[in-house]
């Protein structure tokens, strides 16, 4: 493929990855920002979302669209309920101690993975997309008659992939409004800024934490439902989004919504675009190194404030 179309294709693919990543990372960022908890099990809530989506879609069966829409509603709720239960039963009792919560969430990770293996099985299972039309994309070229449109071989996307980008963008905008306009958003931001003062002002911090933990898991699950018609539900699928989300959260700067989105775009896109220039594995190595070096030389992240 020629360079131009190849770059366009890589950019589009990168955008889909970035969209899903932004949602997943937002969930992690929220938990991390408000509760200061490193949730190692975050990827498993993502996995849970995908698995529930498969159950919902295969139970309803009939039309792919019904199953998908139902999954979009049910899966995040399921993930949130499980997450809130984990918060009440475990994290709260640990008083959100940073080290202890790491071990506890590793434990939760094992529990969720094994439960999925037993209840769902080891196979990768597909969910049908509600719609999926292949859209061939045109490219321009200087021909004999000046500018001409043509359709390069393989330059295409699908309507569903475009929908994923749009849906993720909508959720992100909605969430930004929710944070800045709603009362609960205000309470969350207050708790994030200063837990003690929030307590002093009568904010039920523990209940806020519980809700935040559930909301974080729900965001991950929602992202998974979006991706599962493209990829498949598999009980080990949580590892990759977990690592990437971590990177996004740190690169973006703690608790910065804008930073998280920008970092997700940066990482999603760089993964796609670097692959244009190098062999795939080398591209992965370079992309990883690049992000690590960004952090090394800007440890507070892109939008974070330097902490004393």
């Amino acid at each position: 493929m020629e360079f131009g179309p190849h770059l366009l294709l890589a950019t589009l693919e990168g955008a889909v990855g970035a969209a899903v990543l932004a949602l997943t990372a937002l969930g992690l960022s929220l938990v991390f920002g408000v509760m200061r908890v490193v949730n190692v099990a975050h990827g498993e809530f993502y996995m849970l979302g995908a698995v529930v989506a498969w159950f919902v879609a295969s139970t309803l069966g009939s039309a792919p669209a019904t199953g998908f829409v139902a999954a979009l509603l049910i899966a995040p709720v399921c993930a949130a309920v499980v997450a809130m239960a984990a918060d009440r039963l475990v994290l709260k009792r640990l008083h959100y101690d940073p080290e202890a919560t790491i071990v506890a969430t590793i434990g939760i990770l094992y529990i969720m993975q094994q439960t999925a293996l037993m209840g769902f099985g080891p196979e990768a299972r597909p969910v049908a997309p509600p719609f999926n039309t292949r859209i061939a994309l045109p490219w321009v070229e200087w021909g004999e008659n000046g500018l001409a449109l043509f359709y390069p071989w393989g330059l295409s996307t699908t309507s569903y992939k475009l929908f994923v980008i749009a849906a993720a963008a909508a959720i992100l905008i909605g969430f930004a409004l929710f944070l800045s306009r709603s009362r609960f958003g205000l309470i969350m931001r207050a708790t994030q800024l200063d837990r003690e003062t929030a307590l002093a002002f009568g904010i039920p911090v523990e209940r806020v934490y519980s809700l935040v933990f559930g909301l974080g898991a729900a965001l991950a699950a929602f992202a998974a439902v979006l991706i599962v018609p493209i990829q498949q539900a598999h009980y080990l699928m949580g590892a990759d989004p977990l690592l990437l989300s971590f990177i996004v959260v740190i690169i973006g700067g703690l608790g910065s919504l804008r930073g998280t989105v920008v970092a997700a775009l940066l990482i999603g896109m760089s993964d796609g675009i670097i692959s244009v220039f190098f062999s795939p594995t080398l591209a992965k190595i370079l992309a990883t190194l690049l992000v690590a070096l960004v952090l090394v030389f800007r440890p507070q992240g892109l939008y974070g404030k330097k902490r004393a």
Partner: protein
Amino acid sequence: MSLSARSIALHMSLIAILFILCFTLSDYHQGNLARILVLATYAIGYNVLFGYTGLLSLGHAMFFAAGLYGLGLPMHLAGLAPLPAFVIGVLCAALLSALVALLALRTIGVAFMIVTLMFAQCVFLSILYFGTWTRGDEGFVIPQAARQIMGLDLTDPTTRYLAALLLFSTALLITARIMQQRFGHVLIAVRENEERTQMLGYDVFRHKFLAVVISGSISGAAGAAYGLLFGYVGATFASVQYSIFPLLWVLLGGAGTTIGPLVGAVFMFYLIDYSSGFTNAYMLIAGVALVLLVLFARSGIMGEIRKRWVPWLP
């Protein structure tokens, strides 16, 4: 008895017990314990950085792998003898840890976790990328005939156990000694309050740098020993889960205790080994055990013992 005399007595009797176990355990448990001793050495290396200095790395598998491949590749490709290969393995890990320290120590907290994680991921992918020599994920076998040092057959179970014990004891005594010296006290001070240590006039960066190098070198020695004693070198050992293992062992056994790493490694190994005996859902059991442990014994096994009964425990 003074504190340091008590601690020497404790460590010496631990080593003596482990020595006696070599001749009293069944073949199966002797084999397991040999493996655990090497892995516990890895955990000791991790503990230097995490338990004492308070730096949580998620990329220690790269140091383990540097030792493993630093030993394995010269033996595999050039037929080098085990001892010089072992030295090369440890040097590789030392070099890599120095490089990582220079870059990663610019960050703190969670950023440090992520940076180490990503460097380790680069090492993992590089092993795959250079598959022509490393044979990627499949790895390669170091044949039995090559695993001999001065007439000693390292594939013989007893010799192997004693070699593993030698490695473990060396690492244990070195770290115990370091932690009793001023250098070690400064590391702990860094863990407790970095700014104050800085203000007291200590060169915090230099101490942290050395801690990373010591930690990485011990982890690398464990990796090199693993390849030599068990005859297999492969990319799995550089993957993320092998970075998480030492964290778990140390947290379970008790971070910042000298024998916690061994206790944690033994505990995890037998938890999985026994539970896999009656169910395939042993991961579930491991998960539940972790949650329970952290709920009811937050400082890890040795940490709780120190807190409740034996305050002098090193």
